[in-house]
């Protein structure tokens, strides 16, 4: 008889026990050597506040049903249980065959939000998907806004943007996206993890700080920030205006004479070459090291933007000077992957003439 008394208590909340098992199992982290657990539950499940209330009421009615042997109370208990099944079916249909692909901007800088294009498609043939969220699976050093999607029609695709902010530089492996929904009843949050391993390179931050300004001012060309116009000043000649020319370059006097618009052409300024020297000494303070990396990047950027030919010298790498965005990318890439050298010291940045 006692065994009989226990049985309903176990069998009635059986689905819940399964959920609980899933939660416990789902949270287990794989051992460092393993790539992922052998068996991963395909869906994650958790209760919302309303879901907890629902469960509480269900258990209460369940107890009173057992207590009173009132079959109509049993009927209500089983109705609530079947609603859980319905909820599972509908939320499954929402998540099924929904996938998201992300497109990242070409350049991503540490600490600045990057606008990511998230395309969510529903490959189901008949059923739309309603009210779900797409977000990046959590990874250390990543802050990403979830994208909420009200509806994706069958066979359709919806595009949204999301802000991703990376806290670390270098190669960053994004584990994938998680699609989750409270649909249909708001009692559970069901989620599925889509493995979509993407690698992006996060450049160091280009933010100009006080220290960057100091470095720039002490650089070879004096105060870079005051001599904003870096281009040459001697006029080389005049030519017909082309589409896209700056209106400021129009030589109005000659234009009046020639009764057509002529623009000034300047003598190309002699290219200045500098090296950004980054002494990437090893230090116990990783934050200081990161700051120095950011400074080196910001300084390189400042020179490139002003048309300098810039090279990079570190204890481990040397990049010969060059101009333009490709050169900047080259330098930033090197700085993105730079690690402290074997020598101890305080990492610092300075600029010298090539």
């Amino acid at each position: 008889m006692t065994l009989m008394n226990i049985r309903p208590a176990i069998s009635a909340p059986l689905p819940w026990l399964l959920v609980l098992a899933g939660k416990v199992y789902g949270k287990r982290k794989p051992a460092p050597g393993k790539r992922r657990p052998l068996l991963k539950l395909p869906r994650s499940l958790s209760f919302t506040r309303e879901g907890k209330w629902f469960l509480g009421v269900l258990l209460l009615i369940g107890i009173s049903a057992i207590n009173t042997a009132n079959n109509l109370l049993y009927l209500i208990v089983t109705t609530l249980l079947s609603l859980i099944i319905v909820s599972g079916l509908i939320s499954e249909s929402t998540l099924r065959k929904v996938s998201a692909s992300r497109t990242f901007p070409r350049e991503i800088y540490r600490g600045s939000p990057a606008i990511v294009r998230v395309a969510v498609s529903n490959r189901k043939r008949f059923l739309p998907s309603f009210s779900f969220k797409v977000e990046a699976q959590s990874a250390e050093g990543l802050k990403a806004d979830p994208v909420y999607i009200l509806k994706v029609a069958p066979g359709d695709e919806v595009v949204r943007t999301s802000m991703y902010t990376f806290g670390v530089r270098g190669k960053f492996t994004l584990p994938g996206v998680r699609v989750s929904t409270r649909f249909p009843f708001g009692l559970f949050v069901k989620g599925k993890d889509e493995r979509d391993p993407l690698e992006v390179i996060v450049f160091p931050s280009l933010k100009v700080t006080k220290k960057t300004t100091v470095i720039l001012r002490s650089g070879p060309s004096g105060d870079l920030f005051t001599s904003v116009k870096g281009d040459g000043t001697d006029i080389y000649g005049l030519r017909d205006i082309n589409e896209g020319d700056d209106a400021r370059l129009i030589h109005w006097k000659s234009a009046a004479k020639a009764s057509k618009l002529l623009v000034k052409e300047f003598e190309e300024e002699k290219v200045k070459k500098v090296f950004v020297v980054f002494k990437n000494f090893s230090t116990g303070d990783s934050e200081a090291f990161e700051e120095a990396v950011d400074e080196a990047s910001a300084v390189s950027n400042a020179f490139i933007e002003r048309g300098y030919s810039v090279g990079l010298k570190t204890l481990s790498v040397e990049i010969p000077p060059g101009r333009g965005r490709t050169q900047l990318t080259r330098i930033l890439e090197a700085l993105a992957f730079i690690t402290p050298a074997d020598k101890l010291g305080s990492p610092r940045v300075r600029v010298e003439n090539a």
Partner: protein
Amino acid sequence: MKLSSYTILITYFIASLGYLSVYLVDGVGAPFVAATGALAASSLYFNLKGRKVVHDLLWNILAAAVLAFFLTDYFVLSGSLITAASRMLTLLLSLKLFGLGRNSDYLLVFSLVFFQILAAAASTVSLFFFLLLALFVLSGIWAMIMFTVRKDWQDSSRKELPAVEFGWPFFISVIVVSFVSIAVTLLLFFIIPRMGLGLMDRKTDNPLKVTGFSDRIDLGSIAPFKTDSTVIMRVEALNRRPGLIYLRGSAFDHYDGVSWSKKVKKDALVKRSPDGRFYLKAPGGMESRSLALKILLEPIDTDYIFTSTGAYAVEGNFSNLWAEASGALRLPAPPYSTIEYRVWSNPAPLNDAPASPQYLDTSYIDGTPEGVKIRELAGSIVGDEKDGLKKARAVEAYLRKNFRYTLNPKTDGKKPLEDFLFRSKEGFCEHYATAMAVMLRAAGIPSRVVNGYLQGQWSDLGGYFIVRQSDAHSWVEANIGGAWVTFDPTPPSGVTPAKPSRLFLYLDYMRLKWDRYIIQFSLADQGRLAQNIEGRASGLLAILKKPTGLFRSSTGRVVVIIVLSAAAVSVILSLRRIAGAKRRSKTPDFYIEMTRILKKRGIQRRPDETPLEFALRLNNREVSFITGAYHEQRYGGAGTDKDFMEEVKKTLEGLKNTRR
């Protein structure tokens, strides 16, 4: 439709289910439900205009007032927790309908309705409840879907929710899923283990009033019930026997001129035997020919249970039984709930214990001035007949032939028997039975009057008799040669009862099943269900062991055909799925076609080559074009338009036809 008017519509529908549920709760009363329902209906006007009348502060004050009302109701007015709580929920619901606005307001309305349904579940046994619950599930699913979408949207954006096109496929799938949910509900209902003990058994507060079963019965008291069509019990004959079934209730042995009562009071306690049955007497070796009845008795206000004539065993969920000397059976207390029991009885009367002299008691005839006339009448009917049975048959036949059946006999009630026999010569079952019993005693035959029910209306749907109040009846049992024999001197009333409509029979059948398999469902039923399934499973196993046997029966053949075609369909479907998965590979068909053509000529892409490198190596115009198209389609997301595909097709054809 706009989501807001959608929500209002569905909210009011759900609220109306709440009012109907409360109507099912005992003691709430129709006027209360009607008044609060009317109040709620008037709130619709404000909601359609988008006006919130009851704001938060007012709501709090009103809620406190309703709580005070609840306490007064519980302690002073109704005294019943469920009634008072139902009234409170209904008042809260009516007021909340005036204050709809936020999501939480709607959620509160749905919760209130849910608890109203819960209250109904605790109080009613009506079949109507299931309808309400099913409708609540169907509409509740929609309401919850809409509110979840609304809430999710509001959580992610401050903008107004745009109109959501749910679309027909989704609508239909939700409807299908809802019905699946109701089916699953029932399935789970039968599976969830029952405890087999109710600490607070379901009782009704107002059992059906029945007559004929108290200690003293005035003649004529059955008449008002003869027009009442309320169902008293449903009787299933487990093995049909020819002849009418008389369902005995109580029997009387003493007539005082206006009423019958019991003088013989020798009640015996019957204990349950180890096989779970109550044995009243030895079956007498007639088990194979005995009549077995399954009776589902509605809650009535008497402790008598009804058995067929000559009952020798009863099985049911009662602790013990009292058997009166007349064979009437009593429960220890009125059940106040529907009960089910089985009765076995002998088709032929057997020798019983010798009849008590009380059954020959003629003190009334001897003490009344018209007693002589009664004796004379009895004597003239019986004549010189010596055989007891023939005497009794003669009296029975006389009464059937010479008297008129009416429910309104002319009598002042002071001497109903004499009025019946000598003056009006009209009456109903009680008069006929009384007259026969009294005359049999005058003729020296021990007799008694039995009150109970006739078998009632046959329902061919469920194969059971529907017994109503109007089937209440009185008849006579006479002890002839030591055995009690049933006589029914009442002629047919001449009024054939209206044939019940098909709809009524269906409803009654559903009600029976509802009572039997939902309300009365128990651990024992689950045991039976499990045994049944086990039996079927073993039958299936036997078939699987010897599959040739299947083809012998036509149902077996049908089953085999169904199973085989289902298997074939599933194989085809899964093959299509696999093929479809292949087709859905990211490489477009035309590129695969190109590799196939090239392969025929012995040109193959090396595993380390990218398509582009491959094309560069071949340096062929067609291959380069198709590779470009492939890249465009796969990575550029373009190139699905018609002209483009036409071009690709042509190039492929060209490639096919070039000779090398």
